[in-house]
């Protein structure tokens, strides 16, 4: 019983973790992309479509990543090349993503999907309890863990990561040092989009293997809140993602037991939890100021 619940918590947490990690890298480079929800839903629809056409959910995963990535370039072009307002453009990306995905996915509504099967790692998965929980998961879970480790190493141990953080904290100085601000930011936006696309693919291939319009249901926004919650640190994203996964699954189980609380109150819990967490994290102005990338959301036009 406990093992089954833990498995569903992992499935619910994985898309949040992946999308939030992508956005973390984008924001570390100083770009605030509020279009996570839109890129996620584009990833979900591309992944589902490719899987239906080819029969292989692995091609679906790739399609999700590519779909989310390409879609994020639209945001990159507007905010980085044309220096449009990042907040407004992010909203536009979400609105457009929800619209296009609804249109693209219309013929898929009601079709049974193909689920991405778990990859059982021999020997390790035989370990009692932990083996089944940690080593008999699908590809997206392994990728999420690899991303946490990889991004943590990249940001804090590698030279390029240092440059990326420098751009996020002071793009003027970084430019003066000869770092290509715009190119790095494009790559960071692209990475964020690819991650959001992968997270979307997880939704339509693992979490609920079917296509439902608006199936991301605010998860992109929760991922954005997770980045703030994690104060821009990869390991804390992992912890926060699992906390939210637990709240989501907990309320689903409470609904199934019918404990006398209206189902709508329980469904609202993840959103209420997001607000509560934001209050706890943000109330100390000074720590927020120290953690937030100083150039976050500010446009950069190189002077020549």
């Amino acid at each position: 019983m406990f093992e089954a619940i833990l498995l569903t918590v992992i499935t619910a947490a994985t898309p949040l973790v992946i999308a939030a990690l992508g956005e973390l890298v984008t924001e570390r480079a100083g770009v605030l992309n509020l279009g996570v929800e839109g890129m996620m839903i584009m990833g979900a629809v591309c992944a589902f479509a490719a899987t239906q056409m080819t029969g292989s959910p692995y091609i679906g995963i790739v399609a999700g990543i590519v779909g989310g990535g390409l879609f994020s370039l639209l945001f990159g072009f507007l905010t980085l090349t044309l220096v449009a307002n990042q907040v407004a453009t992010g909203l536009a990306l979400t609105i457009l993503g929800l619209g296009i995905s609804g249109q693209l996915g219309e013929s898929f509504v009601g079709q049974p999907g193909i689920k991405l099967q778990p990859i059982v790692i021999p020997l390790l998965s035989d370990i009692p309890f932990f083996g089944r929980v940690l080593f008999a998961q699908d590809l997206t879970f392994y990728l999420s863990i690899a991303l946490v480790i990889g991004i943590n190493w990249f940001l804090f141990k590698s030279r390029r990561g240092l440059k990326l953080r420098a751009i996020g904290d002071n793009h003027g100085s970084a430019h003066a040092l000869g770092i290509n601000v715009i190119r790095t930011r494009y790559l960071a936006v692209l990475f964020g989009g690819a991650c959001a696309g992968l997270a979307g693919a997880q939704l339509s291939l693992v979490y609920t293997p079917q296509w439902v319009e608006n199936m991301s249901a605010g998860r992109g926004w929760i991922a954005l809140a997770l980045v703030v919650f994690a104060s821009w640190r990869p390991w804390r994203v992992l912890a926060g993602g699992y906390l939210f996964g637990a709240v989501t699954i907990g309320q689903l189980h409470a609904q199934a037991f019918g404990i006398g609380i209206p189902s709508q109150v329980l469904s609202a819990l993840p959103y209420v939890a997001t607000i509560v967490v934001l209050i706890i994290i943000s109330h100390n102005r000074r720590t927020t100021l120290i953690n937030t990338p100083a150039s976050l959301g500010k446009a950069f036009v190189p002077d020549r």
Partner: protein
Amino acid sequence: MRIELQKRARVSTLFSVLSPLLALVLTLIGGAILFWALGKNPGSALYSFFIEPLLEVWSLHELAVKAAPLILIAVGLSICYRSNNWNIGAEGQFTIGAITGSILPVLYPEWHSPMILPLMLLMGIAGGALYAGIPALLKTRFNTNEILTSLMLVYIAQLFLDWLVRGPWRDPQGYNFPQTKSFQIEAVLPEMLASGRAHWGFAFAIIAAVALWFMMRFMLKGFEVQVLGQSERAGRFAGFSARRMVWFSMLVSGGLAGLAGISEVSGSIGHVQPSISPGYGFTAIIVAFLGRLNPLGIIASGLVLALTYLGGEAAQLSIGISDKVSRVFQGLLLFFVLSCDTLIHYRIRLIFAGSQAEAKG
């Protein structure tokens, strides 16, 4: 080839006017390509999407019905965005306004008095404003990001509405449909003209837009909004309080969204049901930007966006494409608006390898 931006010495007035129009033209071109890709004749599709709804009296009334909430919400949002407060939860404030405004007709269906309608509208405004007060309180008190909190509150408001109409507010004689009793006649916002459905919500929208335009143009408060939006520091030197501006802009926009909510329920639907808005609160964000955050511009852009809703419905009937196309249109439009706005502040130059060529000015 690469694109280089050159800051204009002063803001281009020409492009301030031209950029929304340019965006509209680009959206139409994008739309034509979209219809072509869907295998429809672009010309006739665009005609039935954008022209046909304008040819009949009843559909002009529908246009006003749909434009009313969009304009009401968007003029409030323009104050928020000008002052750098990013309220994106208008959909939730709309929902709560509809709920608080409906308390009287739902709980006292036997109360027949001319007092009921003004009270309903006031309660709708209060409900929307209070709901927008939550992110304002959290931002001023706990430094919380208002984008995320106001958006989370949308989901909560929708679930609350869902619970109400399926639970305590459900009409016992309603054959188990999740909706309230129809409002008594005194609680229905009347139509403006005898010729069709357009109700007084549209008049409220125009009044609100003109009033806020006047405030932004001629009153100190309007100047305060602009100064604090452009530089909080400069505003502090002028003795303006950014904190108070958070409250002011959020309460105004929330109140107007609440008024839109109760007007929609009372004037257009006639009862409360789980779904009361086709995303007006989010579409209003596009309306605000297309109107260049100017209340008078927003009247025009509200009508344009209302047309995309109508066109979507019309195109579904006449050429058999899904009304989801209108969502795509709305998204494209916002994208083109934001890109064209670059031309107001910058000259765009295309640099070709080797030679330098001036492209657009």
